[in-house]
């Protein structure tokens, strides 16, 4: 395990050194990603400017959700490129090289790329998050700090799991993968507002199947000390982010199954 971790960080170092050879391009892309999401938030701000609130949530409260989910995704996007771009790897046959090395396939793919340009996106997510936390005057307790960290970690696990599932699909088809964007980018769009505003089936889907609400909405309720119109308890709100971890563990099992399929068909 320690050895694997050391190797992972070596992979990361290699990836960063490679990208820094194109420094100007990396700086430009980071700024671009930051700016793209700033305009996105301007649109949200404009809606609050006109309507005041959504489902009883104010702009800073929604900004907490927005900042949380964007930070989660930005981190995942930064460390999950190996899975996200897995279709090109299967098409080119480079996955065979991964299998030819005496290390876990997941470790090799996770280490494949540490995408620096996502720092722009991460900076935007964190900036919104910090602004929200300052504007909200949350009464921090050790429990809340722990919950906050757990929520970010749970969200990263969940999104990472989605990328692993998306990569697993590549063993069967490399077409139509765009449909996975429904869960990643669609999830991002969904989770920036409280799920209580959505229709029940939709809500259930993002709580029980792809448990995005468990890493954003429920912990946010606990942080804000808001009562849940859906009736969740405080204990549930604290435990909910674990669903992200469970999702990742299940995804990794699915991945193993996919690799076995690949080894028997060699597609």
């Amino acid at each position: 395990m320690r050895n694997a971790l050391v190797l992972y960080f070596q992979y990361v170092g290699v990836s960063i050194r490679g990208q820094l050879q194109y420094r100007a391009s990396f700086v430009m892309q980071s700024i671009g990603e930051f700016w793209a999401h700033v305009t996105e938030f301007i649109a949200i701000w404009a809606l609050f400017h006109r309507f005041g609130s959504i489902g009883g949530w104010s702009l800073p409260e929604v900004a907490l959700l927005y900042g949380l989910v964007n930070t989660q995704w930005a981190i995942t996007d930064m460390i999950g490129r190996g899975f996200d771009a897995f279709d090109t790897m299967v098409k080119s046959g480079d996955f065979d090289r991964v299998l030819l090395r005496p290390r876990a396939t997941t470790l090799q793919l996770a280490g494949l790329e540490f995408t620096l340009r996502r720092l722009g996106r991460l900076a935007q997510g964190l900036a919104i998050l910090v602004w929200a936390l300052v504007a909200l005057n949350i009464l921090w307790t050790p429990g809340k700090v722990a919950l906050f960290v757990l929520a970010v970690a749970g969200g990263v696990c969940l999104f990472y799991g989605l990328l692993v599932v998306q990569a697993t699909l590549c063993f069967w088809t490399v077409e139509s993968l765009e449909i996975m964007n429904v869960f990643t980018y669609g999830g991002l769009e969904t989770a920036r507002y409280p799920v209580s505003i959505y229709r029940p089936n939709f809500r259930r889907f993002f709580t029980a199947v792809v448990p995005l609400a468990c890493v954003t909405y429920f912990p946010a309720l606990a942080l804000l000390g808001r009562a849940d119109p859906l009736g969740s308890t405080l204990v549930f709100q604290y435990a909910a982010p674990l669903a992200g971890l469970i999702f990742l563990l299940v995804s990794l099992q699915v991945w193993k199954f996919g690799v076995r399929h690949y080894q028997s068909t060699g597609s």
Partner: protein
Amino acid sequence: MRPYWAMLSARFRTLLQYRAAALAGFGTQLFFGVVIVMTYQAFYSANTTPQPMSLEHVVSYIWLGQALFALMPWAPDADIRLLIRTGGVAYELLRPVNVYWLWFSRALARRTAPTVLRSIPMFITAMLLLGLQPPASLASGLAWGMATVCAVLLASAIATIFGIGMIWTISGEGLHRLVSPLVMLLSGMLIPLPLMPAWSQTFLRVLPFRGLADIPFRLYLGDIPPSSVGPMLLHQLTWVALLALFGHWLLSRAMRRLVVQGG
């Protein structure tokens, strides 16, 4: 006209082959539309002050945006990018044609083919199931059709500029990365422009970007009456002309650079 038409139709036919991508894109767009519509319903339900646009109109506006999403010039087209990266751009210079219009034709195909594939199922689904209203009147429908054609030209003109910019690799990357988010925000693709703050409306009216989405969508809804179609088309076409002029100038600068550096 012949070479440009040939380029347009060749690219168009190539792009029509990406049916699986279109199907997946349709599914994604449908999902996004459903989410966005629900958020507007939530915004409107708790708010009693009169708004510049009714919820019904906003819902239709959203679905039009989802249906015509592939039209937007949000990045340099992949084939131009590839052309420049592989040095294939040198061959383009060898052809006895105006490179600007050649690239414009490419951009035009890149806008129309995926849009045709994706928008038709989206229109049908949204109209039957998801609250997209038909055009306010026959006249509104016609006005919308004309404005959409102009929107395609406008989008192609912007995409062509992004493409030309790629010749200055880093600065070109910067250009599109800074401008394309603005295109999305100021065209009405992110939120309907009438919902933007009142003080911003003057700027929005002058800028070219509303010609991409806001003008055709509101003509469709009758929010802009069909009688005003003339000034609207004039707005769009003036900007197409200005951007084409700018594109020509930019390309001539880029060519000089290519000749000097040898590609």
